[in-house]
């Protein structure tokens, strides 16, 4: 007595997958905070006021009304700096993840579609690449490229394209054997047309899953590099810099560490959940 129901729409299924909903919520919150930072932040994140350094949160006796969670060693508002830090995190997440996705997808398509020597070379590089600890590799890469946000983005792309490449390669190999591709060959589509028009669209759902997970990873890597002083300049409000300062003045202003760490965990768990949830929606069979 199975009713033949129309396939529920994609949006409907996402709305009924709690992890995906939570992930989308996190992504929206981050985006809104990043876009509205100038209005959201009560203070200029760079404004120093040494008279007000190390202020505790506002509900403590020594707290100051306008500095909700207190100030850092230079009297800068912790909330404002964290809010502005969201911008850097999100920029890196979007740019680095997209570029890594682009590079990985192109190489993965090539390896999966053409096979043979192309595949051998690309797969071998991926294997070697993935056997190195990412943290170590990124630090070495930034040492080579030089510190700065662009270096961080390049480093993330160079390291993490393999995640996309491996999956895209495997999936392309599967797709290549399917009927519709074979029929494409018989009606005389060129290889490039086939790759772009027939195979790539079928990889899009998978890529979205990987992309959302990669965004979480990129945010963590940027924070790490900024924490060790290899990303943006040290006075720029990024989560990593806040964490680095917070670690230094941990006993004076625990909030300086607490707030960005909370934001990071919130973003990473959210983006991970988004990826997991989307995977579930796209492919309900693969439960892990």
């Amino acid at each position, binding site marked *: 007595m199975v009713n033949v129901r129309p396939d529920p729409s994609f949006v409907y299924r996402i709305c009924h997958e709690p992890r995906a909903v939570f992930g989308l919520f996190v992504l929206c919150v981050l985006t809104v905070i990043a876009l509205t930072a100038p209005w959201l932040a009560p203070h200029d994140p760079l404004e120093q006021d040494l008279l007000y350094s190390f202020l505790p949160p506002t509900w403590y006796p020594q707290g100051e009304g306008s500095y909700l969670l207190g100030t850092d060693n230079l009297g800068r508002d912790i909330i404002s700096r964290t809010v502005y830090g969201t911008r850097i995190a999100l920029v890196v997440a979007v740019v680095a993840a997209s570029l890594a996705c682009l590079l990985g997808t192109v190489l993965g398509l090539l390896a999966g579609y053409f096979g043979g020597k192309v595949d051998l070379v690309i797969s071998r590089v991926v294997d070697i690449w993935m056997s190195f*600890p990412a943290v*170590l590799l990124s*630090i*070495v890469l930034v*040492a080579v490229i030089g510190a700065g946000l662009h270096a961080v983005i390049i480093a993330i792309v160079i390291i993490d394209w393999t995640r996309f490449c491996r999956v895209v390669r495997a999936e392309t190999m599967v797709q290549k054997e399917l009927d519709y591709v074979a029929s494409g060959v018989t009606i005389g589509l060129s290889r490039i047309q086939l790759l772009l028009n027939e195979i790539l669209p079928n990889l899009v759902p998978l890529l979205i899953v990987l992309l959302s997970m990669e965004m979480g990873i990129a945010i963590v890597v940027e*924070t790490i590099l900024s924490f*060790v002083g290899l990303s943006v300049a040290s006075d720029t409000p990024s989560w990593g810099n806040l964490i680095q300062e917070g670690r230094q003045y941990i006993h004076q202003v*625990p909030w300086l560490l607490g707030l960005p760490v909370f934001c990071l965990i919130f973003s*990473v768990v959210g983006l991970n959940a988004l990826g997991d949830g989307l995977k579930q929606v796209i492919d309900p069979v693969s439960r892990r």
Partner: protein
Amino acid sequence: MTTRYLLNRLLLALPTLFGVVTVVFILLRVVPGDPIAMMTGPGATPEDIQHLRAHYGLDRSLSAQFVIYLGQLAMGDLGTSISLRQDVGELILGRLPVTLELTVFAMLIAIGCGVCLAIVGSYWRSRWPEAIIDSVIGIIVAIPDFLWALAFILILGVVIPVMPIFGRLDLALEYQSYTEFYLIESALRGRFDVTGSVLWHMILPGVALALPLMAVGARVLKSSLNVEMTQDYAALAHTKGFSRLQVILKEALRNALIPAVTLTGVQLTFLIGGTVLIERIFGYPGLGNMAIDAVINRDLPLIQGIIITFAIIFILVNFLIDLINTILNPRLRDG
């Protein structure tokens, strides 16, 4: 037979090592920015800089530098650190024991807890303990070790300040070490106050390092234990009168470890790579902490030395995994 196989594996690592050395050398020569200029500051005259360049051999051609570098490496000479003005080999040997002790400690935690979790989960398969273990593993895997470390610092260092969150030893303790292996050395010399303090300081960084390996290892081992428990030999063991726990421990565990060890090998190198950051966060005076300083100061000889050291460690770890697999799996021994 076996020894020859293992020796072969070890010899095969030499080209890998040479590759690493070459790549690192080339990479670090294309670095923009002049380390000598950074080191001397604005007050130096061109003659001073020229003199220093010659001193560090940076005035010759790249290929000449490479040949000289290889020659020095072969003799165990890693050059002189630009920022610390000390022999790189000595610097590394001074820090290596610190990192080794921390790494081994973290590995023991990860393997011990991971195996226990897997056994408990497999013993109570499809009941609530397995469900709890699965969700705990899921949470641990979702959050990277960097964030665990910071969360530990906040919770156990600030909110409930019970654990030390900085350094390797209580500053109040005076201890003159000969080998830098504080933990082992102090225990052997009977300075148990030092041993205790070193262990106490190791717990948070060690656990933070151990968590990812523990979680991944437990997940892999549990699923392969569950597979092994459905094998014929496990059923036979049950009809011998073994309890479920005895079947897991005596029969299934060793078989399940074989795929688990192979699959978690990469995770083990990630743990070692993780020391770089964890040492930084906990102000732990190890190799990783020095590596970050070297990168910030663009100290090429030191960076090279540290990378080569890590490469050697990774090669040895992979060799160790091969060795463990040969010990675990008798079918490999004659192969």
